[in-house]
């Protein structure tokens, strides 16, 4: 029997936590001499107030869904993949190599090929840490941290020494061919006769991300593989008892995780920049950790958390753009949201449980 109704646990608690985080943020904003009300209004207007704002919010959401899912899948196998950042970088490399390899006639051909490239490169970058963990017991947290640095070096090298066209300043690859440009949601909406999200970077990848959520949900809760991943994650001796091979599952889970992180590149590299730039990932790999943990490693939770972070990113971007509030405030707000909804959630949950127990007690009496 649970201590309180499910809705209270999954909706009420995070909501109150979020309000607390916002309240503290407001105090911080006041302390630096700005108006919290204006800030909130700017953020909400900017991120959710127009199809334009949504277009950006959903673009960021897409990035975070992929990195969040990546962390979540590994987490179910009790592997803490801090390497999303590096895997996403490599995913970008994969996308760039494929997009630039052929004069793609149409995106519908380029997209699947690029997805394969992104996923393969991302997965490959997760493979070595996975294999080392499974076979040699090398701690995956260290190896994935190291692989983030190595990925940055590799990407730096590839862009500066190999992919950069001569005569440009930019440490970036050449622009992708026209046929590798992904349809933006704006265009897709326009095709349906709706004017939506003009000039925003959100693109078809968002839909792929939603599909990825569903597929990951199916994988984790409906397939044998997911069952085995979860079993291994909860208890290795039990997994052995059930005939589940820890090495195999560890490697597979990390490959999927790395592949998902790599797929993020479809959104930012192929969908937005349409070329590979240095630092394309911009920390989304690390945000993915927060997204996964806050989303309780459930794809739907990941989606909601990614949306929240997409909102914070876009709303925060608007703040930085249109008010005199420094952009670092956004980082503080993000920190507070993560802290209150993710780590201090029991501060809200415990008293709530007591209230619900007391209410139930009365109900019975």
């Amino acid at each position, binding site marked *: 029997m649970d201590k309180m109704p499910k809705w209270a646990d999954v909706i009420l608690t995070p909501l109150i936590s979020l309000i607390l985080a916002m309240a503290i943020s407001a105090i911080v904003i006041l302390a630096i001499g700005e108006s919290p009300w204006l800030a909130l209004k700017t953020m909400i207007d900017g991120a959710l107030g127009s199809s334009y704002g949504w277009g950006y919010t959903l673009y960021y959401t897409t990035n975070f869904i992929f990195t969040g899912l990546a962390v979540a899948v590994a987490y179910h196998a009790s592997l803490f993949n801090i390497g999303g950042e590096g895997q996403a970088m490599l995913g970008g490399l994969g996308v760039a190599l494929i997009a630039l390899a052929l004069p793609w006639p149409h995106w519908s051909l380029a997209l699947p090929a690029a997805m394969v490239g992104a996923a393969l490169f991302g997965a490959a970058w997760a493979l070595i840490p996975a294999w080392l963990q499974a076979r040699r017991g090398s701690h995956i947290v260290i190896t994935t941290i190291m692989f983030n640095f190595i990925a940055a070096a590799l990407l730096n090298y590839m862009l500066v020494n190999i992919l950069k066209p001569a005569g440009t300043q930019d440490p970036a690859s050449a622009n992708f061919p026209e046929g590798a440009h992904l349809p933006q949601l704006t265009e897709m909406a326009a095709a349906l006769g709706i004017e939506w999200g003009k000039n925003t970077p959100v693109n078809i990848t968002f839909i792929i991300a939603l599909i990825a959520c569903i597929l990951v949900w199916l994988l984790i809760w409906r397939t044998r593989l997911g069952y085995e991943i979860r079993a291994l994650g909860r208890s290795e001796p039990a997994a052995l008892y059930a005939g589940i091979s820890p090495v195999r599952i560890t490697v597979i889970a990390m490959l999927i995780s790395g592949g998902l992180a790599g797929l993020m590149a479809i959104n930012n590299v192929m969908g937005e920049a349409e070329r590979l730039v240095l630092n394309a990932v911009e920390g989304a790999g690390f945000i993915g*950790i927060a997204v996964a943990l806050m989303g309780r490693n459930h794809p739907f939770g990941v989606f909601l958390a990614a949306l929240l972070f997409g909102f914070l990113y876009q709303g925060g971007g608007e703040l930085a753009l249109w008010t005199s509030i*420094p952009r670092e405030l956004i980082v503080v707000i993000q920190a507070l949201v993560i*802290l209150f909804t993710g780590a201090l959630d029991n501060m809200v949950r415990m008293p709530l449980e007591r209230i619900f127990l007391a209410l139930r007690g009365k109900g019975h009496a």
Partner: protein
Amino acid sequence: MDFATIIQILDSAVRLMTPLLLACLAGLYSERSGVFDIGLEGKMLMAAFTAASVAYATGSPWLGLLAGIGGSMALALIHGLASITFMGNQLISGVAINFLASGMTVLLGQRIFGLGGRTPSLTDGGRFGEIILPFADALRDVPVLGPVYADLISGHSILVYVAFLCVPLTWWVLFRTRFGLRLRAVGENPASVDTAGVSVTRLRYASIAICGLLCGLAGAYLATGLSAGFVKEMTAGRGFIALAALIFAKWRPWSALFATFLFGLLEAIANRYPNLDLGVITIPSMFMNALPYILTVIILAGFVGRAIPPRAGGEPYVKER
């Protein structure tokens, strides 16, 4: 590579490893008590900021040091609140603390100094200077030992010596004192400590406070020892490297010394040889920069076995569900 070069590289390694060592030992206290800490980075950053600010304002590195410890401890307290009192997720709390420090330092810095998060540069009085050990100059000419003493052992900031002393001290505290026994026990099996009549909460807070203190030293060393002021994000991932070193060291103090030295040494070598000419090919600078990380993975895979964390690590101590 001649002897002088070796001494120079080692000397550089010592400086580079010091913040890592302090942060690594900080993590060691926390994680040995069962509280995982990926917020070392944030605590160091906050400490670097508060240390630099106060050292600038007062002209005293010592007051700066205190402030650094204070800043780091404040974040440690938040971590304690989240992971001990409210039994929250320690990883999330650590992530949040890193974000918080990265945002708050710039926000406060900009508000106070208006330099976009930088603090003004510290003048010499506001920094920890190099300590020349007695007879360093006189002994320099003694073959082998002379340079080792004069150029390698002598001539570091006081915090370097403190950091190195912390290693035997930590070992002693952990394995020779009552506090250490309880600390190790609470990281392995908090229920055993609880049923022995000792408060798990108090012990864990104590270790987290020590963690805060050591991160404070590390941050202060970065801002007021190695450089002359705070620059945003100046920890540059050292907290994560320290974490890696901690796992590498399997949560043991002497091994922590070794692991952080290895990181320092590899970085010093990469600094010294920005692009290594092997005759056939020249290794580009990017890969020399990544060399410490690549070698870490290789060493980890080849020579270091499974690292088993403290058994109760990462889990809050929940008696009643």
